[in-house]
């Protein structure tokens, strides 16, 4: 099952490599990984999406917790949560394609953020399936380049992951 694990990490050199190393060393899967400092500059927040049985996920969270630089973590998929991923796509856009792409971008609530005579660059945020859906809708033949941020997530409601 797919899980989103959100980690507060000491913002120190080498901390990220410990997390990544742990996944490969123990044969766990990383599907996406995002990391950036938080409003507290001593902390980074890392979000990793992974798949595995309940037993494997339990081991992943326990092993992550054992890392000295991991301050706190939560499995967001255990409760209601919001997940978002940002995508930038370069699309071939000439002739009648231009209007068609514009319509599709509007339907997906994306934005065209850069334009040339033959290319549109589209920005789209949402959960991972929505981004997949957009690529499907415009058709892979027109896609010149895709870059995705990986998943970020946060719990719904009062629940917060902080010190």
């Amino acid at each position, binding site marked *: 099952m797919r899980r989103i694990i959100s980690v507060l990490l*000491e913002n120190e050199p*080498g901390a990220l490599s410990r997390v990544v*190393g742990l996944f490969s*060393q123990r044969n766990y899967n990383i599907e996406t990984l995002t990391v950036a400092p938080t409003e507290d500059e001593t902390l980074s927040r890392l979000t990793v999406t992974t798949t595995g049985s309940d037993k494997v996920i339990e*081991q992943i969270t326990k092993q992550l*917790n*054992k890392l*000295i630089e991991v301050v706190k973590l939560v499995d967001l998929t255990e409760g209601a949560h919001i997940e978002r991923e940002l995508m930038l796509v370069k699309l071939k856009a000439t002739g009648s394609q231009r209007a068609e792409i514009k319509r599709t971008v509007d339907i997906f609530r994306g934005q065209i953020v850069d334009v040339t005579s033959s290319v549109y660059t589209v920005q789209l945020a949402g959960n991972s399936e929505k981004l997949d859906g957009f690529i499907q809708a415009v058709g892979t033949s027109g896609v010149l380049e895709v870059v995705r941020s990986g998943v970020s997530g946060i719990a719904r409601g009062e629940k917060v992951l902080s010190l």
Partner: protein
Amino acid sequence: MELLSGADMLIRSLQDEGIEYIYGYPGGAALHIYDALFRQDKVKHILVRHEQGAVHMADGYARASGKAGTVLVTSGPGATNTITGIATAFMDSIPMVVLCGQVASSLIGEDAFQETDMIGVSRPVVKHNLSVRHPEEIPEIIRKAYYIATTGRPGPVVVDIPKDMTTPNERYEYVFPRKVKLRSYNPALRGHAGQIRKAVDMLMAARRPVVYAGGGVILGKASEQLTELVRMLGCPITNTLMGIGCYPATDRQHLGWLGMHGTYEANMAMHHSDLILCVGARFDDRVTNATEKFCPGARIVHIDIDPASISKTVDADVPIVGPVDAVLKEMISLVRESREKPDEEALAAWWKQIDEWRAFHGMRYETSDDVIKPQEVIEALWRLTNGEAYVTSDVGQHQMFAAQYYKFDKPNRWINSGGLGTMGFGLPAAMGVKLNYPEEEVLCITGEGSIQMNIQELSTCKQYNLPVKIINLNNQALGMVKQWQDMNYESRHSQSYMESLPDFIKLAESYGHVGIRIDRKEDLEPKLKEALAMKDKLVFVDIYVDRFEHVYPMQVARGSMKDMWLSKTERV
């Protein structure tokens, strides 16, 4: 206000940490530190002949004393040579601090002479590693390193020290922090009271309980509490290879150790139990055999300081995270207060069954009139040392024989590489023990394969006068490899012969030690006595043992706990 250079701060921190000996080998990036070492006499340095030897020495000391060992090496090859030793300590949760020189900060990343990314290289085999980015941080980093290494589930910590951090030209205020606080590291101080109560209730209700104890009992200094609890409960106890000595082996309630080469009765009792109380062990594959067939009728209570060890391979019904000594203490008082008593009738029936298993097999081997059996060497050593020696071992058949036939009644005396299985561990580990416990008898039980993996340390033994006794069970082959080849590869002995063995007697003598060869059965005891009588000499006892002996019992691969070979021909 005292101003010190980084190198002086490092040595001063070791003094303040109470470190008496460090084991190491100098080199370019560590020379400022070695100079600081030279200008004081509180911290004594033992110069080994290979850095791996230094780590195993520190490890041997740590296992015998329960305190952290300390290693000092230079960058590059000095640091990478410690990796096997660090991995050995990591797998067995041994507290240790390894101080590594590093090229100057300005050169890092430039493929400088003797540069290795030691933080990266060591990462998968350390509990944590730290690098020094400013000389002023040194005292705090040293304090942190020992704190992390020795608390919670212990383990090795590497400290990487670029050369410019220790330069004598810059001096800083020295402050040794008394306390360390790490917001992200808070090992449990006690177990969950509700879970402990539940565990005690289950123990009282169990009809066929068995205690399965591991190295965590020794690391957690909880042998006394464990022994008390087991005696109160009157139930059988088995322990892992790493747990040897956590409960007196000569006691009636002790079934010997369990797992791949464990006793018949221990493995049978585990398989047929209805409740397993696991204390400080981790259901390792060498213990459980096939996990899906593991102890089908047993519920499991698992006490461990490391939550990740619980339900990793075998699910626990009642997990208890906490230090084993504190948890056992609580269990003892609950058992004492409890109105329930263990079911005596059920327990008597359980013991009757166990005694039948004991009578059926127990530990036995066939003796011979003309060849020396490795098992009888160990039994003779046990008798001659009154079971009181510190015994280190290498890895292979000799290790299993030593663990099976030397009956340890005390913890911290059986010292072996259980998790990683590192050949070459035994001699330097014995040296680390002897250096710190000069009055104690220290035996290194080894084989002609393993001993050659760190034989150079005989020179260190000469330099520091470390009169350990090396008992070389010489079967002229890599015995355990050969045994597997006999059992699984139709005796195709691929690369398992040790041809062109050295003359170990002359070798020992060339290092200034004594060598004794034993190849006749009638010489065994008299010559072992002779060796042990030489209190101030390192004696290399080269014993020619049966070349065809196998270690039994041996669990059948992919079977359950109870599927075992009891000899070359009997399978149960």
